[in-house]
């Protein structure tokens, strides 16, 4: 239990990559194991299949080889059975040559068989039989050689005309002819022939040796036999010598032939068990390979199913572990994040693992706590900031107001003559320009009065500039009071004043100027007393500009000055006086 806890703790503290690494390594291991088992089973099955095919082929070759060898033996047997009947040449053609061809096939087959066994993956027992196959091969080759040698020896022995037996028979006939009529030697001749014949039946050498001994006696008897001419005797002795020489050779050739046949028997003794064993071993090999396939298939099936089930179970365990240690924590963190988004600042993800998710959860918790603190402080700070902002705003508004006021004052200052408080020359020119434009567009009349204080220099010189200024201020007051609300009165320069009278015809303005002159003349200026002014009046005419209008007013003022001052001169009045209608 302690151990499990330790393992569990150790597992929890592992990093995610290590956990994944362990899990996937184990899964990979299981997959690799399964693949190996499958591969191994397949390999064994393929090997067994190959062994079966090889064994079947081996068995087939052995059957074929055995059949061919048997055929060669039959041909060999038939050769000896049939040659006395059909003759040597025909037997040679019908049995010997085909037998040689069959032996060549046996040799080729056994060579193939050896190569198949060598190259195949059959059992060691069968492979070790390769030496038997080699023996089979060499025995087959030897069979061919021995067969050829037997045929040679048999030819020596039994070939028609040239064979020893034929020679013996021929000599026997000829010798019999020579000895015919001589009783004593004929009896010996017959005895010799009988023993030789006995030999040919029994193949027991003593019989032939006896025949040779009788032949010796016959030879002795020929020397004294009556009834034979010397030539016939000599011919008979020559024939007897040839007969005995042939008879002496026959047992030797027989021994050779018997040895060669014995060789066949020994080969058969060596070879027959080989083919029998090879066939049996090949059959066993097939059964063994089949058994191996069955066994391996069974083991492989069980192993594959077991590893598959284990792998499945293990995959589930791994999935559960991953879910418990990774996915569930990620889900918990995701839900916590969602709640946090929904302003649930009290949420805290409960993850204690030592892995990256644990670290992330701890970080998340710290972050949420920090956010909660920040949210709590934020309202008070907002109120404080709002108050600070309102105060600032008030100050700003106050400043704006003050600025407006100052601007207005500045505006007044920039458009007002500082001494008199009337419009200054700039303001007057603006007003003149405005009225010129209006008159041009709408064809409305407007007029101007330009006045200049008479002898104002004398006032400054006599009473000082301050008194002069008070005179100017007093006249400004008079203008302001006398002018209409729509008129603009202003100091045009020095002791000159201009009064712009919108939508006012010249006559009205001349009357206004007169009333002003009168007002001046009746006003008592402190220290100075009476002060007069000269007035020039002009009305806007089509084609006038500000300049031309003021010039015409100024010309009228000039005339008023020239007319003795303290009078009103109207522009164009001289023209009307000089050119009365």
């Amino acid at each position, binding site marked *: 239990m302690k151990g499990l806890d330790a393992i569990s703790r150790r597992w929890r503290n592992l990093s995610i*990559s*290590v956990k994944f*690494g362990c899990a996937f*390594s184990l899964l990979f291991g299981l997959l*690799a194991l399964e693949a190996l088992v499958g591969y191994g089973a397949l390999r064994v099955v393929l090997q067994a299949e190959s062994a079966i095919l090889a064994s079947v082929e081996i068995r087939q070759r052995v059957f074929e080889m055995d059949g061919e060898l048997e055929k060669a033996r039959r041909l060999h047997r038939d050769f000896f059975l049939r040659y006395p009947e059909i003759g040597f040449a025909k037997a040679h053609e019908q049995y010997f040559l085909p037998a040689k061809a069959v032996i060549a096939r046996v040799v080729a087959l056994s060579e193939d068989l050896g190569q198949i066994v060598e190259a195949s993956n059959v059992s060691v027992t069968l492979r070790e039989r390769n*030496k*038997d*196959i*080699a*023996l089979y091969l*060499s*025995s087959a080759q*030897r069979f061919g050689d021995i067969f050829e040698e037997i045929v040679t020896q048999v030819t020596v022995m039994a070939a028609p005309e040239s064979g020893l037996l034929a020679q013996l028979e021929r000599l026997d006939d000829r010798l019999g002819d020579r000895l015919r009529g001589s009783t004593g030697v004929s009896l010996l001749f017959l005895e010799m022939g009988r023993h030789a014949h006995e030999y040919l039946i029994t193949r*027991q*050498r*003593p*019989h032939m*040796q*006896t025949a*040779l*001994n009788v032949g*010796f*006696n016959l030879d002795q008897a020929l020397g004294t036999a009556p009834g034979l001419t010397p030539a016939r005797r000599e011919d008979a002795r020559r024939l007897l010598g040839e007969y005995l020489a042939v008879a002496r050779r026959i*047992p*030797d050739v027989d*021994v050779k032939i018997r*040895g*060669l046949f*014995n*060789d066949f028997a*020994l*080969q058969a*003794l*060596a070879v027959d068990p080989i083919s029998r064993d090879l066939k049996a071993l090949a059959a066993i090999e097939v059964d063994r390979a089949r058994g191996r396939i069955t066994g391996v298939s069974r083991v492989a099936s069980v192993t594959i199913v077991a590893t598959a089930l284990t792998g499945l179970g293990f995959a589930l365990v791994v999935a559960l572990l991953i879910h418990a240690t990774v996915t569930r924590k990620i889900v918990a963190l995701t839900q916590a994040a969602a709640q946090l988004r929904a302003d649930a600042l009290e949420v805290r993800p409960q993850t204690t693992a030592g892995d990256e998710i644990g670290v992330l959860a701890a970080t998340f918790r710290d972050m949420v706590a920090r956010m909660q603190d920040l949210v709590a402080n934020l309202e008070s700070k907002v109120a404080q900031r709002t108050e600070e902002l309102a105060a600032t705003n008030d100050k700003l508004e106050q400043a704006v107001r003050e600025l407006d006021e100052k601007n207005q004052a500045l505006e007044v200052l920039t458009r007002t003559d500082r001494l008199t408080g009337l419009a200054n020359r700039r303001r007057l020119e603006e007003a003149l320009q405005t009225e010129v434009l209006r008159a041009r567009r709408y064809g409305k009349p407007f007029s101007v009065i330009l006045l200049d204080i008479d002898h104002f220099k004398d006032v400054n010189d006599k009473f000082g500039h301050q008194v002069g200024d008070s005179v100017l201020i007093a006249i400004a007051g008079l203008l302001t009071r006398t002018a209409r609300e729509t008129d603009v009165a202003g100091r045009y320069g020095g002791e000159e004043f201009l009064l712009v009278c919108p939508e006012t015809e010249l006559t009205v303005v001349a009357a206004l100027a007169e009333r002003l002159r009168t007002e001046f003349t009746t006003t008592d200026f402190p220290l100075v007393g009476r002060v007069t002014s000269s007035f020039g009046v002009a009305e806007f005419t089509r084609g006038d500009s500000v300049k031309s209008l003021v010039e015409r007013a100024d010309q009228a003022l000039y005339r008023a000055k020239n007319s003795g001052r303290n009078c009103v001169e109207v522009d164009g009045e001289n023209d009307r006086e000089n050119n009365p209608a």
Partner: protein
Amino acid sequence: MRRAVFSAQLSVMFAALFLLCTCAPAPEPCTDKLGCVDIGPDEPLKLGVVQALTGKVAALGREQVRGLELALARRGNKVLGHAVQLLSEDTGCNPEGGANAALRLVADPKVLAIFGTTCSGDAATAAEVMSKAGLSMISGNNSAPFLTSIGGKRAPKWAAGYLRTAPNEESSGPAAARFAFEKLGIRKAATINDGDIYTRGLTDGFRQEFEKLGGQIVLDATVNKNDTDMEPVLTSVVNARAQLVFFPLFQPEGNHVLLQARKMSPLAKTVLMSDGSLIEDSFIQAVQKAAIGMYFVGPTPPKMTPGLEKLAAEYRARYNMPAPTIYYISAFDAANILLAAIEKAAVQGRDGRLHIGRQALRDALYATSGHAGLSGQLTCNEFGDCAAQSFNVLKLTDPASGVEGLKGNVVFTYAPGQ
């Protein structure tokens, strides 16, 4: 870092798989022109034994096997740390038996060499087969001249790789002929062989020497093996008026010749002479007094030495009987020469396997020189003869003294070149 661990795990896994798939080290190449025999650390060293293990001369074949067994026993039945496995094949003492026995052995590529044969007729055919297959073969019993050399030239049945420690009986027939001509004054002689190259070799040797000396071979007869009726051939001897019959036959044909000759009065004075194949207790026991006065020509037996006494004691201890013939000694020497040559030719491979080149083994055998054998000092010549030629003519006077008495009654010794 973890990636690196994972990669290392994968590498280890693949390396393990690779190692699982790795095959055994490749065998070392063989440069011997006749091929090599490779013997694994736990594999036995295979030697073929081709002897006459059944039939009339089985006793001689058994003596050869025993000589080999005694030589192996002295080495703890191991050569170069490998147990020696003997694959025995019976020849039946006939040529076809020799050929087929050799065919069976050479079919096994692990068979290194052949120890055999008993009969020279087997040896001729067996040597031909084994020589073609690249093997080597050594005999302690074959003595027919046809197998190695005649008159300092290759004999008709010479085969590369064939050697023997039994002396070439090229001089056996001449020894008998010289004794007959020079000591007995024989001028007309008859020979009887059994058609085998061994007996024919002896009778041919006898004829050539006898005729060279001035004698006359009046009969050169042959009997078949297993013939029992020898009267016809003996009648021929009588007819030929031969003073001596040289019949180097084995038992029982030799027995029949002797016994039937003794019954034929015309042969009462005819000298009968055979060879070493009848210098056996079994022959003396079988013919008893009939053999009195009979001559035998056989190899000069080795001198009794402490080494030979020790070997004889080992023979007695191992087989609970004294050795019936001396031929186990030449077999012992043949086995030792073969085993020494194997040790000389063998190369211990780095793969733990023993590599023995077949030509290297032949070369080592032919290079045998001054081998201190118990049959004498042995030096193998280019024809495969390792023993010096020395033959005694023995006369049996007392059957009761057995073969040892016969061996002690040396009446003539012929050792050309010594």
